């Protein structure tokens, strides 16, 4: 098959849109500057959309078969849907968090708790606040309630 016959913009655009989506959780989430706002992913999506549009226009301009028109439209739609889903997942669904209005605020006493550490030993918040570290009394304790592994 000759290269001109393959509608490469549509397929490259499609692969790029899939990469734009998947590279957020697997790659760009690692650096704060690409994580806090997904500009890198949106940029890749922009390239992908341009290629998808070019690919669709190509099949509609040339006297191509109906199936080619159908396939290019379908692939382009999938690419656009992945962008829509990315926007939904990052900007909307990720903000569905409870308000935590009853969480302790600055100046308030931190609620006490005792939980098991990784060896199964029960640890008291009071112990963390008072037990010496490297022979010195701790200056404080940082509590991180995490979710997911990033």
């Amino acid at each position: 098959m000759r290269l001109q016959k393959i509608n490469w913009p549509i397929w490259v655009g499609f692969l790029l849109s899939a990469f734009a989506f998947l590279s957020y959780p697997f790659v760009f989430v690692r650096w704060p500057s690409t994580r806090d706002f997904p500009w890198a992913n949106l940029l890749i999506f922009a390239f992908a959309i341009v290629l998808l549009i070019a690919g669709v226009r190509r099949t509609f301009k040339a006297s191509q078969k109906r199936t080619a028109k159908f396939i290019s439209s379908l692939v382009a739609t999938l690419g656009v849907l992945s962008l829509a889903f990315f926007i939904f997942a990052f900007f909307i669904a990720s903000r569905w968090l409870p308000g935590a209005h009853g969480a302790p605020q600055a100046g308030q006493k931190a609620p006490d708790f005792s939980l098991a550490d990784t060896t199964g030993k029960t640890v008291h918040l009071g112990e963390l606040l008072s037990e010496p570290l490297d022979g010195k009394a701790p200056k404080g304790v940082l509590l991180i309630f995490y979710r997911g592994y990033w």
Partner: protein
Amino acid sequence: MDPPEASRELCQKAGYTFTFLSDPKAEAIRRYDLVHAGAGINGQDIARPGEFLLDSSGIVRWVNLTENLWVRARPEQILEAAKMLK
């Protein structure tokens, strides 16, 4: 939320040396009002992210409650806040 065994594995893999606690019954999570009801993979209650810096008397000095799951406190932010501690 993970049991201590799962957390042990994570700590070994990631090289964490700080105290790593498990809260499978969401006791502390509830006490800090961080429960995200039904948000776990199997519909269980889990924690929304939150970071608290306490001074040695147990008073909260700095809090970060993100509005976006993907955005967490950065180490520099916490180090800056830790300068308050005497």
